[in-house]
């Protein structure tokens, strides 16, 4: 397993993304609520740079008694990576598509060591 240095801890702002390269492979490292997530910057749909898109919460439709629609809210606990080419959305936590998990972003382990952040390839 090779390691690619990403940055110093704290260098990526909350909600920010840094892209690093290992040969031809580009990896997006996202910092969200104290945790780092790393995915290959290629969407399984048409190959878009998924990691460069917005990070958006899951949209939840509130349904009340007898099926009455009560409106929409964001679920901030389930952040999504949104591919900027077409809008395909993936769970930030595991990279799976929000509807069909057979479509997923390739995930990499993130290592914190000595105040530095690395991605394991």
């Amino acid at each position, binding site marked *: 397993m090779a390691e690619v240095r990403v940055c110093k801890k704290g260098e990526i702002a909350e909600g*920010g993304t*840094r892209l690093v390269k290992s040969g031809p492979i580009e990896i997006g490292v996202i910092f969200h609520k104290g945790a780092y997530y790393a995915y290959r910057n290629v969407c399984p749909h048409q190959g878009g740079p998924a990691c460069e898109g917005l990070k958006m919460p899951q949209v939840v439709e509130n349904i009340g008694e007898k099926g009455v629609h009560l409106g929409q809210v964001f679920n901030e606990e389930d952040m999504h990576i949104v591919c900027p080419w077409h809008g395909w959305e993936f769970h930030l936590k595991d990279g799976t598509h929000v509807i069909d998990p057979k479509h997923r972003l390739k995930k990499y382990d993130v290592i914190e060591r000595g105040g530095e952040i690395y991605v394991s390839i």
Partner: protein
Amino acid sequence: MLTGTQDFQGEAQRDFRDLASEEFDTRTLLRNAADQAVVRKYEDFLIVDTDSHHYETEAFKEIAEYIDDPVMRYEAKFQGHSRGGFTAETGSYQELAGRITRYPLRKTEKVPTTKHRDLTLMERWMDAMGVDMAVMFPTPMLNLSNCPRIQVEVTMAKAYNRWLCDKILTEDPRIKSMLYLPFHDPEASYEIVKEFADRKGVIGFMVTSTHYKANYDNAYAKTYHALQERNLPLGFHAAFTWTDQSLQLCNRFIGVHALGFSWCNMLHMTNWVTNGMPERYPNLKTLWIESGLAWIPFLMQRLDNEFMMRTSDCGLLKRKPSEYMREMFYTSQPMEMVDNREALELTFKMINAETQLLYSSDYPHWDMDLPSTIYDLPFLSEQSKRNILGANAQRLFNFDPVWSPVKLERKAARAAKAGRAAEPAGV
């Protein structure tokens, strides 16, 4: 700040990118598309994109200067031209509230001042995707036919077409267009064909499909005849409008878009076929644009089934509706391709895709398709892929190929590496 090719390449070679400080640039957004073009060796064959767009709103001040009527010119410059905002009756949110980042960021992209901004933006995405030539259409003007003031539709159509010919089509032989016909005014449509048919880069004329005029009306006869005489195809470019009464039942954009884009072309195709237009104008080629493909097999089956019981309804038809439809041309995007490989393959067979289907990206719109959507289909032969990606368009529009300089450079580099001179490019 990226100011030119050199700076852009320098940015590309840095070992990290910080999105927080990075400026928007089409070439960066489409970097993965450029990789696909290299891997698939697109430099080996011509790729023609038969449906792409620019945002004429960004050049609207220039276009308005082309309006003949001074009062309308003043009004147009005062009001501007766009789809309006959140509360507009056509309240589109194609950009998924900012999720499709090129919508809000496009305006910030820096371009050189040496050529028209639209040309630079077009060339950037075309070169990234491996597209050699593109048929360019406007964006908000696709709904111009819904303007209740017919005089405004005619005025804008003339102004836009003049601007397009003067500023864009004369400047870049890689960009072509099928010009807007103001369909609510048949006489003006005819005049536009006569005025613009011979202008450089004009390869046909286009009707936007979101309108409420029947295409079989005798009022259009001389326009169709003029097109047929000049061997210029007629395109029906689908669109949507939330002002359509039935689509106002939809409260989500997905509904308006999915139905609107296919419904308007189903409607006009049905009228075109049942009124025997292919028999009345046997040499007029029609191109059905931006409705995807799934609607075509449905309509073929539906019309054939009813026609065999009601042949008297369609006195001009000598064959089944599907047989006429199979001789027409279609653009590919947005191609329905989620978990439906068998249906897609059958669709390709039913429409004779090998000769009748033309690749289109619809870039920069939210549901754009890359050339790889065609090139990676496992059921197509290499020749079929090349036909759909470029050769069919070349045949339909009868133009000389103009290659992307990026692809020519890549081809030359490959040839040099192989130790021989580059062969002349050919389809």
